[in-house]
């Protein structure tokens, strides 16, 4: 069989990359950046100015809520229509009715940030369901 030499030409870029990877060895795996979100944001709360809206979430139930952060730094936590389990909790007297089924949750010891307050209320709700 007769062979005709047609000369050389560069390999396609995809092949060149493949060979380069084989000769270089495996590239280090990419590092996935961790999202550093405050708890409130990670749990779906939204912020508009000094107001946060979202829900207190537990394995048993979730309750709509809103939070107001005053200029003084004081944070007020509200919960909508707490269930009978919560109403039977020993801390029910700490829920002050503010009309239209909204309740202000009075903090004996105030959290320094919104996230810590949400976690405290979620912990109380869970407790109410486990009694």
């Amino acid at each position, binding site marked *: 069989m007769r062979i005709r030499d047609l000369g050389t030409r560069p390999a396609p870029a995809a092949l060149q990359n493949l060979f380069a990877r084989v000769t270089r060895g495996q590239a280090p795996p990419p590092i996935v950046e*961790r*999202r*550093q*979100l*405050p*708890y409130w*944001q*990670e749990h779906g709360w939204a912020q508009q100015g000094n107001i946060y809206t979202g829900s207190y979430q*537990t*394995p048993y139930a979730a309750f709509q809520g809103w939070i107001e952060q005053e200029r003084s730094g004081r944070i007020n936590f509200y919960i909508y229509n707490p269930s009978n389990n919560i109403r039977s909790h*020993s*801390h029910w*007297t*700490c829920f002050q009715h503010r009309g239209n089924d909204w309740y202000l*949750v*009075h*903090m*004996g*010891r*105030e*959290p*320094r*940030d*919104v*996230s*810590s*307050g*949400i*976690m*405290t*209320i*979620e*912990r*109380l709700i*869970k407790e109410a369901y486990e009694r």
Partner: protein
Amino acid sequence: MKKLSVVVAGTGQIRDVEIQPGTTAGDVLHQLNLPDYLLSKGPNEPFFASAESVYDKVKDGEKIFASTKAEVGVAVCA
């Protein structure tokens, strides 16, 4: 040794630490300069007591939370 990622709840900042057997929650908070905080695995888990060893209660690489102390209550229901 176990690696732990401590999420500061208020900011979302993640602080990576390595702990040895017997390390307490108080040791971790002291090391991270978070004296007024409490450690927990999340709102559905209880807080670790300051003197409680966390080593046996966490998995290597686990994410835990540091949140500020807060309590629901008024004088009559403390």
